[in-house]
Structures are given as C-alpha cells and as structure tokens.
C-alpha cells in the first residue's frame, strides 16, 4: 500500500478495494461485516431498539489519552448507552483528506477497533470517502450505533423529580483541557489526559442497582452545566448543585483558571450524569464507583421543585448563582 492516502483510495475502484481488503476488513473482521453487502442484516432480541449517530471532527486527531478513532467509538457507544440500551452494532463512515499518512489512518483505525472490543460492540457496515486536500482536515468520522433496551427500562431527559440526587461519575473537563493543550498557540506541558471511555458497562451496573433510574446523560459538548440545564428544562424541575462537591482534577482546575475557562462548560467524553431517587442514591453511587471509569463519582446536588428550568449553584464561599446553558461555542472542534 502507498504511504499516503490518495484520491484513488476513495474511487470505488482497485485502490479502494485494496484499502478495504488490505486494512479495513482484516482489522474489523466479523461475520456480519465479512458479507460485504450494501448493508448488514441481523437479528434483534426482545425489547426496544436505541439508535444514535454522531460525527467527529476533533482537532488535533491525536491528543493525550486518545484519538479520533476511540473517541468516535466511545462517543456513539455512550449515546446509545444513555438511552438505557446495551449497544451492539456500529456503522462507521470515514471522510479522509487526500495526503493523510497511511500510518496515521492505521493508528486511528486500530484504536477504534480496540475501543469496540472494550465496549463489546461490532462494526457491521461502513464507508470510506477520500476528498481533495483542504476539503476536510485530515479525517472526519461518523459513527452510528444500535442497541437494545431491556423491557421496563425508561430513560429520558424528562424523568428528573424533586428530591432526586444528582450524581456525576467523575472529574469534569478532562477531555476539553486535554485537547486544548495540543492546540496551536496554546501548547503547554501537562499530564492531563482525555477521559474518553465506554460507559455501557457502568450504565448496566446502574440499572442493576436501581432499575427505576430515569435520567442518564453524558455531558459532552457544553459540559455538565449545559447537560444539567437541559434536564432541568425538560423535566420542569430546578436543581441545586454545590461548587465544593464538583470534582475537578487539580491540574485541570489550574489550566481552567489560567485560561479563563469554566470547567462546568468543558467537554467530557467518559462521564455521565444520573438523577436518582434519594433512597437509591447510595446504591447507584457505589455501583458507579465499581467501574474503572467511575472511581471519583460523587453526589453533586439535588433536584428541587423550586425555580423550574434553572440550575442554581452554591459557590465555594457560600454565595449563590445561576448556572446557565453555554451560549455559543467555548471551544470549536472539541469532538
């Protein structure tokens, strides 16, 4: 194979076939993909299906703690999982810029494959396009995912009730800051890693501990602040969170201070928010803490009947302020 991706690799002709049989098929090998039909046909279990799609344009494509490959897999796995579903199958569409080093493409795809293994999902259909230099930046990836929701599970943004506890599964803003440290003009040394991770096993553990959990969200773009606002609006409830209980890694907090970012609005790629009734909160919290991605989980606040649609924060010094949705984009191309 050539050292770099050429326009011919997306032509549908010989070189495209080579890329497919030489790289993609062996890497993602499974019986459904091996059929090489226009689409995949599969059986489904009892229950309802959850379906989600997301497109990944992160810049740079390699960042501390991950790359666009595992990010694209984890992102969609998590979106499906937040529906209360067990994710099963993924599709993947690649848009590759002419000239991308073949070794970079391989690295991204290998990382996507390992992420699928970690999450226990399979790639069953895909597509590759190559566009002229400058038409995209290196590589953009779309993934869609299908999962099965077990009978009785009802998850939605409208399920928060006054009295619920709000649980966050770990530290905020790691992904946002990790990507930022690699940006031109802002490069700085740190050991901050993206938190990109599959949360499907954690979700199943939560549902096992408290089958009646009604709200799960992964606070990606827009961060915890925006996700809480969306839940408060949809559920027509208010929320009170406590600044002193919000988990932020010290290095991330330092970087946010220095750069003027609020960690409440920075992206997470391996965290979830969960609203659960008071009597189940401890059981859910310990279920989350059993997960390797949830050791720093904590109760950050509670759902109240007052000020519906609004999230209020008790600040570290004892003041109060509104936590609004993020207006506009704090950082472009974060995922």
């Amino acid at each position, binding site marked *: 194979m050539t050292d770099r991706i050429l326009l011919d690799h997306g032509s549908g002709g010989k070189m495209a076939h080579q890329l497919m049989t030489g790289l993609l098929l062996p890497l993602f090998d499974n019986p459904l993909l091996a059929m090489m039909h226009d689409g995949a046909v599969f059986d489904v279990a009892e229950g309802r299906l959850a379906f989600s799609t997301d497109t990944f344009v992160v810049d740079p494509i390699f960042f501390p703690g991950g790359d666009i490959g595992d990010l694209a897999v984890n992102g969609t796995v998590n979106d499906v999982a937040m529906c209360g579903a067990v994710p099963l199958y993924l599709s993947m569409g690649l848009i590759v810029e002419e000239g991308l080093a073949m070794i970079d493409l391989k690295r991204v795809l290998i990382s996507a494959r390992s992420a699928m293994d970690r999450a226990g999902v399979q790639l069953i259909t895909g597509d590759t396009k190559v566009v002229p230099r400058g038409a995209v930046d290196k590589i953009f990836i779309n993934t869609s995912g299908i999962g099965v929701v077990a009978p009785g599970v009802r998850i939605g943004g409208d399920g928060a009730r006054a009295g619920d506890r709000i649980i966050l599964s770990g530290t905020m803003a790691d992904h946002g800051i990790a990507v930022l440290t690699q940006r031109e003009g802002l490069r700085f040394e740190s050991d901050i890693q993206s938190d990109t991770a599959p949360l499907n096993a954690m979700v199943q553990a939560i549902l096992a501990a408290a089958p009646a959990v009604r709200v799960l969200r992964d606070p990606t773009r827009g961060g915890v602040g925006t996700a809480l606002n969306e839940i408060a609006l949809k559920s027509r409830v208010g929320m009170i969170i406590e600044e002193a209980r919000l988990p*932020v890694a010290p290095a991330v907090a330092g970087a946010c201070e220095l750069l003027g970012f609020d960690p409440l609005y920075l992206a997470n790629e391996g965290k979830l928010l969960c609203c659960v009734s008071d009597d189940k909160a401890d059981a859910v919290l310990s279920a989350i803490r059993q997960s390797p991605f949830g050791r720093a989980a904590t109760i950050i606040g509670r759902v109240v009947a007052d000020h519906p649609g609004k999230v209020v924060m008790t*600040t570290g*010094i*004892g*003041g109060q302020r509104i936590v609004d949705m993020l*207006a506009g984009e704090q950082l472009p191309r974060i995922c």
Partner: protein
Amino acid sequence: MTIDSKTFSDRFRDPVVARGLIHQIEETADRPMRLMEVCGTHTMAIFRHGIRGLLPPGINLLSGPGCPVCVTDTMDINAFIALSQREEVILATFGDLLRVPGSFTSLRKEVAEGADVRVVYSPTDALDLAQQHPERTVVFLGVGFETTAPTIAAAVLEARSRKLSNFCVYSAHKIVPPALSALMTTPEVNIDGFLLPGHVSVIIGMQGYREFFDQYGKPCVMAGFEPLDILHAVLQLARQLATGEPKLENAYPRAVTDQGNPRARDIMSQVFMPSDARWRGLGVIPGSGLAIRPELAQFDATRRFNIAVVEMPEPKGCICGRVLTGVETPLECRLFGKRCTPMDPIGPCMVSSEGTCAAYYKYTGQQGNR
C-alpha cells in the same frame, strides 16, 4: 508552560475566612453605598462566586467601563470590519472581538463571507503570521488597557527588529485613570467608592491613580480577583466611608506595588503616545488613548490604510453606554434578554466574556422573557 495545582487559589476562596469578612462588612457598613468595580474581570468574579448576594443589601456593586471590548466605540469596530474586507489583509485579533456587532455587520459575519480573520492568543502569534505570509499584510487589532498595551508594544518593537514590513497595529488601546476622571464629571454618575482593577494596577502601580485620587478624594482600593480579595477590598471601602476618611489603598499587595511595572511602561512609551480616544458611553476623553508614535508610522494601521470611518448612532434602544457608567443596570434595558442575547448580541456588553450584560445574562437568570 506547566500548570500548577489549584491549591494556591483555594486559599483565596476559604469559606470560613469569607464568612468572617462578610461579618466585618456587615458591622462596618453603616450606610447605603454605591461601589464601582471598574474592571470586567471583577464583574465576572463577583457574579461567579455569588458575592452580591452575600453582602448587606445596602451595598450596591456597579460595573464600570473596564471591559476593553465594551468600551470600544462603534466607529472603531466599523474600521476593523472595513479592514477585514480588504483583500490583502489578514486581521489578527483576540477572540472576543469577533462577535461584536458594528453598524451593519460583525467580523464573524465577514469571516463567513470570506474575510481572513485569525484569532490569536498573543500578539507574537500575529508576527509569526506576518512572517509566514509575506504577500499579505497582517493587521493586529489592539484593544485593551495598560494590561495588554505593553505586550503589543513589545510586538511592534519585535516587528521592527525582525524587519517585518507587512505587520501593523490598529491601536484602540485605552488607559484607565482618565476614564475614572471622566466618570466623576459625567452627570447622573453617582459613585461612593472605586474597586480599582488589579491587572491594570500591576502595570501602573498605586502611583498611577494618585492624581485622580488627589483631585476627587473618592475612596479607592486596588483589588485582586479571588473572592477573598474582593471581600477584603469591599471591607476597606466600607471602612473608609464609615470613618469619612477617603484613602487610596492597596488590597492586592501580592501583585501590586507603588511603582507598578516601570519596564512595561517604558516599552509602552517607546511605541505609544497619549492621544484623545472615543469611549462607548463616555465619549471622547482627552489623553485616554494610546496612538502609535510618528517614528513608528509604518506599524500604524490607521496611517497605512485610508479607512473612512463615519460617525454612526448607537444601535436603537441599546443602553450599553449607561451600563458602562453605572447609571443603569442591564435589567433596565428593554433589549436585554429579548432581542439582545449572547447568541445574537446587539451591544458589546453582551458580547465580551467580561461584559456586564453577559455577566447578568449568564449568572442571574434574569433573562427577560426566556
């Protein structure tokens, strides 16, 4: 650059010490008082930590003209936009300016139309851009106070030593003390004391305010940006008002000295000279701007380009000018939260991350009809 842990700032956010300071403020503040925090970073910190609600109701904190983007006049914004429309120009700017509306359009809209506007984090990035694009002219939009002006001055000197002929600066810089004097002589403005801007004070030092203080005799306290810094400064202002002895005090001694940073001021004066400047809300204030010295004319965008700027009225209904002088609050503006939001701002105070309207919108939840 390495990032240190957050423990340092935690020391200035201690809830027990905060409660102690608030208690002392309650004991000391024996009358209603209108205190102006001049700096936009103070405004944001006051909201972010919920400080207003912790103070006795008689203490009214007003936001002042200390957000550089907010006080930039529409005429200057229109000039920036006119520059962005020139084929040969790469406009380099800090991010906040992108969304500020001019009379007809904004830089962000011009970018969508094809203008080449680059967001930089430091003026030296703009020098690198000039070096990489010798066939284009890089114009850096100099917006800021004494805090940013020295770094931009240093970039101009660096451009001269690198012999970069395709780099220049549009200087809309402003300096703070003349604006304080202008506030004192503006009718309707009613301020009992000033929380002076910490960052600016690092550069100009306590001595930078002495003339202002001697002339008007208003309580003045230089303050840092952590919650305890701000509470401490408010306590000092309350004490001065209670005793009837106005002073010029430094509540930020870990960063501010009497002399400030003479080296930064020296670099500034090698490149800039005082000029009259037009402030949104305050009008033309003599000696409050920084123009590029004639011997460095080749680095002065206003001399290199013939930019026709026409005086334009402020957007209809926008009261940014009155907000910037503390005469009215954003809640008194009929556009606030309705036609003017951070997503679709009409006035600059809604755009800048340090703007008073943006702070009210983000942190008070009082967003008109939303």
